[in-house]
């Protein structure tokens, strides 16, 4: 598999996020800063440096509609950055964590974001108009270890988390005043904030990298035992599949369509998994050609 383009931004990158039009990328070069590079005429140029955190920035997400960046760091803080004029202006979000923040993601409607932390908690942050600040609501229960990854379901209420306790869980993050109860949706909008909908015990070792399919019907996450788990029909009776592979473990996954998943991890090469007509997932070796129009919206640089 040949890379489409290779750019060396830094010796080591801990996390990154693309701008809505993919012309810019924000990343953390393994320090407390966030660098934003802009692509102009085939060359990447440094456009901004965001300096506010005291320790490594462990998660960045760039919302597509509102054009806001959220960053979280090992310093237990989070900032929401708004582009005003020609500068990125930070707003501190008090997460109320006593351990590092590890991952962050904007919700599909971008009115909330979720933060996973080493404090075995997940922070759901939403904007309170009256006080003009971001409030953090904590999901303290259930996790027995660090929350390594979070992923929002398209309905903006369900959140999947993975943890180093090996489990993948789905929670409801319904917040009164922010979310609306959809009478058609059924069970998900009947749940209270922080209520666990589902717990998956498929992995016997650390779990990382959870992601929902575009429709929200399928969930994929990886375990440290070089296995990837696919769960179809997430709900009261899910269908789970394990796919074990011969290479080093994965760390993150991305659905690029309903039936195709890309995994990246310690093996330094992306892996592609696909589901056949009967719904069985398998590892595929697709030779990449220029005619493959695949929208790469996530690239993982191994931290070596």
């Amino acid at each position, binding site marked *: 598999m040949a890379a489409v383009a290779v750019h060396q931004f830094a010796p080591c990158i801990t996390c990154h996020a693309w701008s809505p039009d993919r012309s810019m990328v924000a990343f953390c070069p393994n320090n407390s800063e966030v660098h934003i590079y802009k692509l102009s005429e085939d060359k990447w140029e440094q456009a901004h440096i965001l300096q506010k955190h005291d320790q490594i920035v462990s998660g960045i997400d760039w919302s597509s509609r509102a054009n806001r960046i959220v960053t979280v760091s090992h310093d237990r803080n989070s900032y929401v950055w708004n582009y005003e004029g020609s500068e990125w202006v930070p707003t501190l979000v008090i997460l109320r964590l006593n351990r590092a923040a590890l991952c962050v993601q904007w919700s599909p409607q971008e009115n909330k974001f979720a933060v996973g932390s080493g404090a075995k908690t997940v922070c759901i942050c939403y904007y309170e108009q009256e006080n003009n600040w971001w409030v953090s609501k904590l999901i303290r229960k259930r996790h027995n270890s660090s929350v390594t990854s979070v992923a929002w379901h398209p309905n903006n209420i369900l959140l999947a988390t993975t943890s180093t306790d090996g489990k993948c869980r789905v929670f409801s993050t319904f917040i009164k005043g922010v979310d609306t109860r959809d009478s058609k949706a059924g069970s998900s909008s009947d749940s209270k904030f922080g209520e666990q909908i589902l717990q*998956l*015990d498929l992995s016997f070792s650390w779990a990382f990298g959870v992601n929902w399919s575009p429709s929200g019907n399928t969930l994929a996450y990886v375990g440290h*035992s070089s*296995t990837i788990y696919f769960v179809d029909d997430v709900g009261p009776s899910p269908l*789970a599949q394990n796919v*074990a*592979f011969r290479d080093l*473990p994965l760390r993150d996954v991305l659905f690029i369509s309903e039936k195709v998943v890309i995994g990246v991890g310690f093996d330094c090469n992306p892996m592609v998994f696909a589901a056949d007509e009967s719904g069985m997932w398998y590892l595929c070796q697709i030779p990449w050609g220029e005619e493959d129009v695949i929208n790469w919206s996530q690239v993982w640089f191994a931290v070596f």
Partner: protein
Amino acid sequence: MMAATVDFVEADNAEAIISRIEHKSRKIESLLKQSRPVEALKTALEGSPPNTRDERCKSANWIVVHRAIMAIKDLDALFSSLDPEYYDILMKYLYRGLSTGDRPTCDQCLRIHERLTERAGLGCILRSLADTMNTV
């Protein structure tokens, strides 16, 4: 399709497991007498009881698997007929063998480990290391 949870076998079933292992052991001895070491190893690995915390069951099964491992002479024959579904469990037993420190056992386990890694990849090693619940 697999269930989302794993059940553990309790200690009072241990006697049943141990008698099954003894039955397996007789079958393995007869296979070895017929010079069918690969079949013997498959029989030993089959029905390995990782879903139990009872150390006696694990030790009993290890003795049987160890016997079969030491009887392997032809590695090419082994890997041309051993199904991939046995790779992960075999790797776990190889590590148990390597941890004994006994010279002939370690030599044999290391020899098989080299070929198994070629066949099954590093993922197989990861699965035997990372799985702290289903140990042998």
